[in-house]
């Protein structure tokens, strides 16, 4: 372990530490990726296939009437709910770490998503062809927030196989949104989903379109959206 405090993090512009030391020094850049999807769709499996999974709980007050109030009076009337998240970390070189958060897809957990999606690299909507409708809420959410997302279809052994265009059609998503068939249990397959997401985020970053476009837009923009 590093003992002395003389190794306080340096500005990246001034010189670099060696990679091993950087690992010990903790992350310099932490990126968020959300994995959203209905119950039993394989979020835990997917996160576990690409990273070491660890427990993380969040406990939220269900009323926000006392936001900013920090005395006990505000708390007494409140109830809290505990949500267990799947939490995984992939440590890359140069102090970059990707944090994966598997979050329940139901609308009642959106208070958490607002938190998680802010500044997120992107999201994976994990879908099951037997219950595609369970993905609608997540898709709507990320479309509205302008969070880059991909749809990853977890190909369960006993589910009917559909090809990506069929699924895209059924989900009625923007043609630019990648639909990736995957096996959430397989490291390679799960990694391919993340690669697909970062590629998509990069495409959006290098060719930005207005985010949060929920309705058809008139004028020249429309052509780009179709």
């Amino acid at each position, binding site marked *: 372990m590093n003992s002395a405090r003389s190794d306080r993090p340096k500005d990246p512009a001034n010189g670099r530490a060696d990679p091993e030391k950087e690992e010990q020094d903790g992350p310099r850049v932490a990126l968020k990726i959300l994995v959203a999807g209905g119950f039993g769709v394989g979020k835990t499996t997917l996160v576990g296939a690409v990273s070491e999974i660890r427990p993380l709980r969040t*406990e939220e*007050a269900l009323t926000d009437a006392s936001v900013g109030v920090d005395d006990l009076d505000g708390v007494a009337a409140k109830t*809290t709910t*505990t949500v267990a998240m799947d939490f995984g970390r992939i440590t890359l070189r140069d102090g970059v770490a990707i944090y994966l958060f598997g979050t329940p897809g139901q609308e009642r957990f959106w208070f958490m998503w607002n938190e998680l999606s802010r500044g997120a690299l992107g999201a994976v909507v994990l879908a099951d062809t037997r219950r595609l409708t369970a993905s609608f809420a997540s898709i709507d959410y990320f479309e509205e927030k302008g969070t*880059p997302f991909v749809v990853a279809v977890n190909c369960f052994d006993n589910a009917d196989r559909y090809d990506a265009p069929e699924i895209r059609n059924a989900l009625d998503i923007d043609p630019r949104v990648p639909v990736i068939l995957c096996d959430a249990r397989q490291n390679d397959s799960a*990694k391919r989903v993340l690669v697909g997401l970062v590629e998509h985020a990069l495409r959006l970053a290098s060719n930005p379109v207005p985010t949060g476009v929920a309705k058809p837009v008139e004028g020249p923009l429309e052509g780009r959206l179709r």
Partner: protein
Amino acid sequence: MEQHAPGGPYGPGRERWFDEAAGPIVRPYAVTRGRTRPRGEPLDIVTILVVTGAPPAEPGRLTREQRRLLALCRRPYTVADLASELELPFGVIRVLAGDLLDSGLVAVQRWTSPAAAPHTDQNLLRRVLDELRAL
């Protein structure tokens, strides 16, 4: 889901205990003395914190959890990692870490200018992509 102590929510001066085998012994927000919201701007779940090295003005007032946070933050630590490590909910860590931030004991580590959003930083995304492919 949350296990409520019998008799409903806790109130002023009445920290309730419960003994769920798998759950925490102390109600999570007891360690924040009942506060559920941080004083300042809420910390993001992947905010990186690191100790400033400043000595605490009143070391005796630090809770056990805050002392553990300070020990971990001798190297940069994200709020998510702190929550997982201390086995406390994210919301609780946010309150505790927010206090340490307020009192200048920890600082938010910013490697890039605050304006640079990681998800739109093309160089960063390219690097991440290369490394993910190589994993």
